[in-house]
């Protein structure tokens, strides 16, 4: 763990969470939704971990996990936060990391998480335009690929 990371560890402890090391160079921090923005602001502005690689979504059954994957030279830092599946709303981090716009749009399309404050959140990024409104987001575990194919009319017309 590098010096920046131990510095981050101190801050994380003050915020009531801690940095867990997954493997060499790779650590993960669990932050609650209401503390997330303050934590990320500290990460980006004070620790200078500026490169957001992407935002990963995970379906954990009852909840959705949103993982912000940052990298700083040799270190990879996953900042992990949970969003309830029943009410998938999260705060946008576009004001802290402007490069997050498209990743948040992607997560909105794939998991149905609404990012409050994202400037382009009403746009569709990935799914086709004729995507039925009542179809659940594709990457949820309950959604089946065949079901989507049937609704999109992609099932082959076999003789």
């Amino acid at each position, binding site marked *: 763990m590098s010096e920046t990371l131990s510095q981050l560890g101190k801050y994380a402890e003050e915020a009531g969470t801690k940095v867990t090391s*997954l*493997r060499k*160079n*790779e650590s993960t921090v669990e932050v609650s939704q209401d503390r997330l923005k303050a934590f990320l602001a500290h990460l980006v502005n004070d620790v200078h971990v*500026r*490169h*957001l*690689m*992407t935002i*990963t*979504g*995970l*379906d954990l059954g009852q909840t959705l996990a949103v*993982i912000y*994957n940052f*990298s700083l*030279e*040799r270190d*990879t830092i*996953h900042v992990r936060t949970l969003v309830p599946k029943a009410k998938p709303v999260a705060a946008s981090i576009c004001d802290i*990391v*402007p*490069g*997050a*716009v*498209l*990743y948040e749009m*992607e997560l909105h399309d*794939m998991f149905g998480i609404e990012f409050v404050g994202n400037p*382009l959140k009403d*746009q*569709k*990024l*990935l*799914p*086709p335009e004729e995507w039925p409104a009542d179809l659940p987001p*594709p*990457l949820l575990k309950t*959604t089946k*690929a065949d079901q*989507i194919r049937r609704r999109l009319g992609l099932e082959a017309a076999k003789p």
Partner: protein
Amino acid sequence: MSTPPNQQRREESAGLMEYSTESLVPFGPIHPALKEPEYFKLVLEGERIVKVIPRIGYVHRGLEKAAESRPWVQNMYMFERTCGICSFVHSLCYGQAVEELTLYQVPRRAKYIRTIIAEMERIHSHLLWVGLMGHWAGFDTLFMWVWNDREVVLDLVEAISGNRVHKSMNAFCGVRRDMPENMEDRIVERMKFLTDRARYYRDVIDTEETMLKRTENIGRVSADTAEKLCAVGPMARYVGLKRDVRLNDPYAAYDEVPLDVITTTQGDVHALLRLRLDELVASANMVTYAVKNLPDGPIRVKIPPIIPAGEHSSHCEAPRGEIFYFVKSSGGRTPERVKSRQPTMANLPTALELLKGQTLADIPVVLTAIDPCFGCMDRMSFYDTETNRSWTWSGEELRQYGINYYFPERSKKQHGLTKGDGPLTNRCLRDGF
């Protein structure tokens, strides 16, 4: 697409009717020559672009969902086919993320072979890009030369892997094929040839007026903006950010092979051309070194088909920038979740920033500059907000427009379009586009 505008587009342009100086230009999605279909909405003020709204997803196939129902090994072949240009590095990155979940080590010889193929892929991708840049700037001679030289490296790739594009070389914890015997001299000789050619092309782009005029001082962005927008790869290095996964977090054999990371602060499209040609030389040197110092030993460790539970991420430097894979396993025969992020996705916000303030004629050059894995330069429909008339340009016509804009003397007779001939819209209407 030259079909009548659909209802949605009509409504969008109707919203802009209040500002008569602005026009909305839907951009995409079908392109004849090369690229994948994408769609951008451009808001223009006269010739200048004010705002760009992307709509990707024309190539969206749903790989991440499909990965959850396929065995680990089959996923490798599927992710390899995410992109036809940087195919090897996708399978490498996915493979590395999975390898970290197992306790097996990759043999050293396999790491070297992976480095050789990855660098050859970078050479072929950069040559492809330089050729395209020549094509879009109206310098087709360069396109033909560069693509002819590109065959040299593709021949090597084919001799090693058996296919020119999708190498299918990777396996978990190793590679599937060893280097052929007696290839060393041939590779070293070809790399020397490519190095010479790359140096020569640097001369060409520095002295040919066609290239200079189209690329200098175009596509500028500040280092701070690029960093904030999380640009990766050459798009970060051309403004002076030393962002290269090979240097920051070495994978494969990059910690042993001498690595030369090239950055520049010139910060325009011309700098990107030079940077990519320099990187090509550096890659050729790395291939030469790796081939000469190829260690002996096994090339592969066989691993069981069940991967232990856990989650891990991996990132690699593709020719276009950093790619990222996140893998979660629940200890079964299929992954629980695979997330992949391609460099173009990361570079898109920067590209949109680059487009702002550019003229219509520069769109092909600027959009090609990010080396888009999609990026469609074709079938622009133009809407005149005053008369609500629409017309369509193909990518080729747009390219012609760009050439005419910069070199009016060359093709006045073709369209009669010259620089400073009144607002674009009126001119195009008059000329019957």
